[in-house]
């Protein structure tokens, strides 16, 4: 099904004051790019106050609608039919809708929203007139609370937009307005959800996965790729660094107390993420930690991680329960990918009794004079980059080639 017009309702941006214009500019660009990537037809985009309207003669497919509701900054999306400032045209539009339906709704209501104050009738008057007509013409009883069908009439400038559904979108702030973060991904449920939550708040993200080959196989890379592809729908585009970490893990395991392996792996992952952040211009690290979900997530162990990081570590899931995280993962489309089993951080290394309250000093001192900085730099240069664009198309590049291009780090912008 295609819709000729889509009314896009903005979210929090509308609360912004002086810099509202900037947010709108970024959002507008994000929307334009998304629609252009998925639809070869021409379309027009105009803003009428807090309503942005997309119009196309050929209409917008479900694919476009699906993509729009994943753009942070948009509160909801209403596919609509545009008619003139004439109630007769409104009635015709509604008739067309009902004639196309197999089943009639049991109850309905009309909701009129009017931003054109010059329109002769008030919203309530329009509600009454059209409502009365629908009741008479189609025999459907009106119902104010929780009706089966809500027909929304938006009177904007010199048109009325008639829509029968308003689809909830991600909300939040447009990607590109809150800065740039490095998001640590594992194959589990948590980190993708953490990424989603940060996308909602408008951050650009560079993803990083630490690959412990040969202690784990390569199948996990397919999983991580798929997760990144899904997460890229909430971003402007996605860039994933696959960092070879097997050597570093072995080096850690060769020198540390076995109980500290997991905590120290995390420490060096955070160090590497910081190094990467330096190269790409990111200002914070994101992880999927939830307080005490697993042994490395006690307060003491997280403190050890924090200690190793120059940049703030953001943990959006810190207060979430596992069940809540899993529910969210279903909602954002990562559940079925995360649920697939894979070798994670490999049982070979897992200590029988991982330390629960890490000794901060031991963690801080560990690794001095073992050349980890060089190992980390080397691992970053040996990484593989995977890109996903808006159409889900995938491209690869070596990190070496990427760094050699001397790209200016993308600091994003935060206000």
């Amino acid at each position, binding site marked *: 099904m295609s819709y000729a017009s889509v009314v896009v309702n903005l979210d929090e941006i509308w609360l912004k004051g002086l810099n509202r214009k900037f947010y709108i500019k970024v959002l507008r660009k994000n929307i334009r790019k998304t629609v252009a990537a998925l639809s070869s037809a021409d379309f027009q985009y105009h803003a009428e106050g807090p309503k942005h309207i997309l119009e196309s003669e050929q209409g917008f497919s479900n694919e476009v609608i699906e993509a729009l509701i994943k753009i942070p900054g948009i509160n909801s999306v209403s596919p609509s039919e545009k008619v003139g400032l004439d109630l007769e045209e409104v009635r015709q539009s509604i008739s067309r809708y009902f004639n196309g339906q197999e089943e009639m709704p049991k109850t309905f209501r009309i909701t009129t929203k009017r931003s054109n104050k010059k329109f002769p009738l008030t919203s309530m008057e329009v509600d009454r007139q059209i409502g009365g007509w629908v009741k008479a013409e189609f025999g459907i009883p009106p119902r104010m609370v929780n009706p089966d069908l809500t027909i929304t009439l938006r009177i904007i400038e010199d048109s009325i937009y008639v829509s029968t559904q308003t689809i909830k979108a991600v909300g939040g702030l447009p990607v590109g307005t809150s800065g740039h973060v490095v998001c640590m991904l594992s194959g589990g449920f948590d980190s993708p959800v953490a990424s989603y939550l940060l996308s909602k708040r408008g951050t650009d993200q560079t993803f990083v996965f630490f690959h412990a080959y*040969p*202690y784990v*196989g390569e199948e996990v890379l397919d999983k991580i790729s798929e997760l990144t592809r899904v997460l890229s729908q909430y971003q402007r585009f996605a860039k994933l660094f696959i960092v070879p970490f097997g050597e570093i893990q072995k080096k850690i*395991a060769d020198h540390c107390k*076995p109980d500290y392996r997991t905590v120290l792996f995390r420490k060096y992952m955070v160090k590497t993420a910081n190094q990467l952040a330096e190269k790409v211009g990111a200002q914070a690290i994101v992880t999927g930690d939830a307080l005490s979900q697993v042994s490395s997530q006690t307060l003491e162990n997280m403190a050890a991680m924090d200690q190793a990081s120059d940049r703030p570590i953001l943990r959006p899931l810190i207060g979430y329960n596992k069940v809540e995280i899993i529910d969210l993962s279903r909602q954002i489309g990562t559940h079925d990918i995360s649920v697939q*089993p894979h*070798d994670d951080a490999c*049982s*070979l*290394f897992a200590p029988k009794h991982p330390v629960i309250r890490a000794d901060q000093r031991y963690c801080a001192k560990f690794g001095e004079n073992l050349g980890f900085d060089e190992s980390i730099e080397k691992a970053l240069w040996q990484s593989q980059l995977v890109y996903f664009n808006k159409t889900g198309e995938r491209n690869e590049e070596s990190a070496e080639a990427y760094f050699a291009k001397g790209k200016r780090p993308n600091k994003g912008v935060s206000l």
Partner: protein
Amino acid sequence: MIYLDFAASTPMVAEAQAVLTVTSKVDFANPSSAHKLGKNLMKRLDEVRADFLQSVNADKEYQFYFTSSATESNNLVIQGLTLPAEADYFCSQADHPSVTAPMGFVARETLNKIEHNSSGQVDRETLLNQVCGKSGIVVLSHINNISGIRTPIKELSAQIKEIAPKMHIHIDGAQAFSKFPLSLLESGIDSYAVSGHKMGGPKGVGGLFLRKGIALRPMILGGGHEQGLRASTLNAPALLAWNEAMEAGFRNQERHFQSVSELKNKLVSELQDMDEVEAPFSRSESSPYILGLLVKGVSSDIVLRHLEMSDIYISSSSACSSRKKGDSPVLAALNVPKQRHKEYLRISFGSTSSEEELEKFLSVFKQTVAELRQLGGRK
């Protein structure tokens, strides 16, 4: 590169490669065509057929049919035999999936599992008790592809036929054909499946020895090829190449058997020095071409990847089931304890495998195992 996964597939032997290079260029006609090109080609293929039959003394009592693979041959027999409702089905869960899958499909719950003793050999007594007086089909693997264990098929089929004369006996010979002397003459074996790419031949060709007079329902219908048993244009170039590989195999059979046995024995004795390494099937009679190992406390996947990093290739389970994680029904049937399944490795040799290769393998293998044991050591 050091390739030690011959049981999964083999590079073509020089003779076969040479022939294929030529025939794939010039022998492109359809052997079933009515013109001279087709007819000549078909004549040559009939000669190939005769060669195969002669190689195992089967020319009097058997027909030889060309298929695409041993998997197909196994399926043809198992799915194609018309058996009465009371028929019984026997096979081992250690057999190749191309046996266990169709057997499971046709027999459903009535499948009788052939048991193995603690050394992994077929438990002869139990089997004979199971089949006594019954009719249906028994499938045996000449050489088991995971363990390398050899089943004395000629002896066993004779014994089975004595107490169950109506039983059809089918052998999966994929790992054995051309490597071991075999005479089908006056044996109780009713059908024997063979594979091209397991013996230095090309991929995409296989065969089935079938006792004359036994009818099978065809799986592939069409142009009536192979006397109606298996439609599809014959892959003449590949079959001609396979013929070369087969002849080379039989010609060099003894010599290769000797040299590979020496290699395997040397390897086993070196490995015996390592406490954590065990060759669980070495007590049984097994093919010198296949060696199974259990490495205590180390996941075979990781060993494989380490070896791979040194360009050395071995296997941890049948290539067909390597995607699945966890327990192996094959190893379970061979009485390997469940918790050790992920420690199982298979090394398989070819006639071109050399001492140098084995030494290199040993050195990387020993180092890898030592490192990994140390890492996982506290468990």
